[in-house]
C-alpha cells in the first residue's frame, strides 16, 4: 500500500461549493442554485499563483487523483499524470479538479432534487454547454480567491473547455493546455453521439428520463452507448493487439452468445459503466460535445474566435486517435498561428487511440513536463 501510494497525492476528500446566486445558461434557462463538487491536490503558494484547473472529459469527474479511502482499489481517473513528481506535479502546483454541472456523482445534475419541486430534475435539467461549465468554474475560481490560473488543462471534452476558457476569460489563465481535442465535432462524431443517445432514450426503462422515480435505470441503452463510445476511443490497432480475433471457448459456436474476446470486453465495459454513470448525464455531456463550436459566433472563423486570447497554448495530439485525430488538433494550432497567438504543438506517436491522453508515453509526459516546468518557474513555485 505504501509503495503504491509513494507517488500519489494520497487520501483526498471531495469538497462542495454551494452557489445560491442564480446562473444564466446558454439555453436561456437559469439555475437558481447549485453545488459544485471538487477536489484539490498540492498546496496553493503564498502568491496564489500556482493553481491549475483540470477540466475533465466525458466520463470523468472531480476525483482525478489519489484515493478516497485506504480500502480504495482504484485511484482517480488521471492519477497517472497528477501527483508528486508526475506530469502535473503536485509538489509545485495546486491542482483543482471540479465535477461538471450535470454530472452524476458530485455537482448538481439530473439526479439531484429540484429545489422547488423536491423531485429529481431528470429530463428537466437544462441542456448545458462548455461555456456554461466554464462560467461555473469561474465562480469556483473566485470562491478559491485565485486571480489567475497558472494553467487550465484538459483532454478531449476537457480540452474543449480549455479553449472556451481562453476565449471567455482571457485574463484568468496564463496557459491553456489542450490534449486530444478538436475545435468542433465532425458530422461523424455527432453521428456516434446520436446513436448513443438513441440507445438510451429508446430503452423501455428510460421513462422519458424519469427513471429515478420508477427506481430503474436504462441499463441496456447506457451499456450500448458505452460500448459504442469505447470502440471509438480505441484504435483498430489497439483492439487487434489486445484481442485479435481470439475466441473465448477456443472454437466457433455458430451462435449469438459472446464468442470473441472483444465482445466479452465490450460487454464488461458497458456493464460496469452502468453502475457508475447516469443516463441523463450521458445525454447532457454528449450534447455539450455536439454544441461546442467557438467559431460559430465568428462565422466559422476559428482564428477570429481566438482573437481575444492572451493565454499561451500547448496542444497535444495522438497519432492513433481517430475520434479526434491529429488533423483536428492541427486545426486548433493553425487558427492560433493565424491569430498570432503563442502555441506549441506535440504530435505523440501512440497505439491506443483517444484514451492515450490518460497514459504516460515518454514523448507525451516529457513534452508536458517541460512545458509545465516553465509554467511553474513563471508562477514562482
Amino acid at each position: 500500500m505504501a509503495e503504491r501510494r509513494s507517488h500519489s497525492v494520497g487520501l483526498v476528500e471531495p469538497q462542495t461549493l454551494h452557489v445560491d446566486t442564480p446562473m444564466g445558461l446558454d439555453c436561456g434557462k437559469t439555475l437558481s442554485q447549485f453545488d459544485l463538487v471538487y477536489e484539490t491536490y498540492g498546496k496553493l503558494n503564498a502568491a496564489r499563483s500556482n493553481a491549475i484547473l483540470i477540466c475533465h472529459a466525458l466520463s470523468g469527474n472531480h476525483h482525478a487523483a489519489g484515493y478516497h479511502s485506504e480500502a480504495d482499489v482504484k485511484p482517480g481517473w488521471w492519477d497517472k499524470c497528477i501527483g508528486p513528481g508526475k506530469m502535473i506535479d503536485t509538489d509545485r502546483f495546486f491542482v483543482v479538479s471540479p465535477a461538471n454541472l450535470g454530472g452524476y456523482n458530485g455537482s448538481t445534475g439530473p439526479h439531484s432534487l429540484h429545489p422547488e419541486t423536491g423531485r429529481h430534475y431528470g429530463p428537466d435539467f437544462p441542456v448545458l454547454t462548455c461555456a456554461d461549465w466554464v462560467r461555473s468554474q469561474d465562480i469556483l475560481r473566485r470562491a478559491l480567491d485565485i486571480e489567475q490560473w497558472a494553467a487550465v488543462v484538459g483532454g478531449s471534452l476537457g480540452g474543449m473547455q480549455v479553449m472556451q476558457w481562453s476565449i471567455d476569460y482571457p485574463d484568468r489563465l496564463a496557459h491553456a493546455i489542450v490534449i486530444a481535442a478538436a475545435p468542433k465535432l465532425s458530422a461523424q462524431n455527432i453521428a456516434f453521439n446520436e446513436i448513443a443517445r438513441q440507445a438510451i432514450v429508446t430503452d423501455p426503462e428510460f421513462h422519458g428520463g424519469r427513471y429515478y422515480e420508477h427506481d430503474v435505470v436504462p441499463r441496456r441503452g447506457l451499456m450500448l452507448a458505452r460500448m459504442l463510445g469505447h470502440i471509438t476511443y480505441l484504435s483498430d490497432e489497439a483492439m487487434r493487439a489486445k484481442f485479435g480475433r481470439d475466441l473465448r471457448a477456443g472454437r466457433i459456436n455458430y451462435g449469438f452468445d459472446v464468442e470473441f474476446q472483444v465482445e466479452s470486453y465490450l460487454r464488461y465495459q458497458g456493464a460496469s459503466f452502468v453502475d457508475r454513470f447516469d443516463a441523463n448525464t450521458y445525454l447532457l455531456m454528449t450534447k455539450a460535445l455536439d454544441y461546442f463550436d467557438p467559431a460559430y459566433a465568428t462565422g466559422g472563423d476559428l482564428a477570429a474566435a481566438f482573437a481575444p486570447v492572451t493565454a499561451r497554448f500547448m496542444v497535444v495530439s495522438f497519432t492513433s486517435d481517430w475520434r479526434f485525430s491529429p488533423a483536428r488538433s492541427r486545426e486548433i494550432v493553425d487558427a492560433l498561428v493565424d491569430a498570432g497567438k503563442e502555441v506549441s504543438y506535440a504530435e505523440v506517436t501512440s497505439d491506443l487511440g483517444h484514451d492515450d491522453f490518460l497514459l504516460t508515453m515518454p514523448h507525451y509526459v516529457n513534452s508536458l513536463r517541460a512545458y509545465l516546468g516553465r509554467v511553474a518557474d513563471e508562477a514562482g513555485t
Partner: protein
Amino acid sequence: MNTLLTQTHDGLRDDLALISNWITPGARVLDLGCGDGTLLAHLQRTKNVTGYGLEIDPDNAIACIGLGVNVLQLDLDAGLDQFEDNSFDFVVMSSALQEVQRPDQLIEEMLRIGRDSIVTFPNFGHWRPRLSLGLRGLMPVSKALPNRWYDTPNIHLCTVRDFEGLCRDKQVDIVRRHVVNHAHRSNLGMRAFPNLLGEIALYQLRRTVGF
C-alpha cells in the same frame, strides 16, 4: 576574420550568430527545422522576436519547450499550406534544405510566407568533397558533411552554383550571401571563390517584385 562575428552572442553557434545579425529586432520569425530551439531562444532574448519553430524530432521539440520556444511538431515535407502569405518577416531554414523532399518547392513556400528568407546549407562544391569524389571516388565525409552515404539524412546536396542557378530560374533575389568554413569563419579567398572554398553557405533571399 569576418567583422560580423565580432558581435557577441553568448557562445551561440557561429552560423546561428550570423543569421541573428541578419534578423531585425521585433521581427516575426518562422524557423523551419529549428532543432533544439537555440536560435529562436536567442532571438527572443536579444531581439524580442516572436514566432515559431517547426521541428519533427520529438526530443528536439521537447528541448524547445524547455527553452520557452513555441515549437510546432510538423513535417516540412508535408508542406506549409497552413501558413498565410506574408505572415512572417523572416522564414529561416538552417541546415535543413538538403534534407527535404523538394527543396525547390520549400523555397517557394518560404518566399510566399515570409518577406525575407534565410537559408543555409553545406556546399557540396567545396574543394574537399570535390577531391573526395573526383580523385578518391568516395562520397565525401567531412565536418560539414559528417554522415556516411548510407546513413545520411541529406538527400538533396547541392553546390553554391547549383543553388544560385535555382534562384535565377525562380527569379529569386539574393539579398546577401555569406560563405564560411566548418568553423563558421570566412576569409578573402572564400569571398573570391565561394563555390570552391566555402564549406557552408548562408543566403538571405527575397521574392523578386512581380514574381
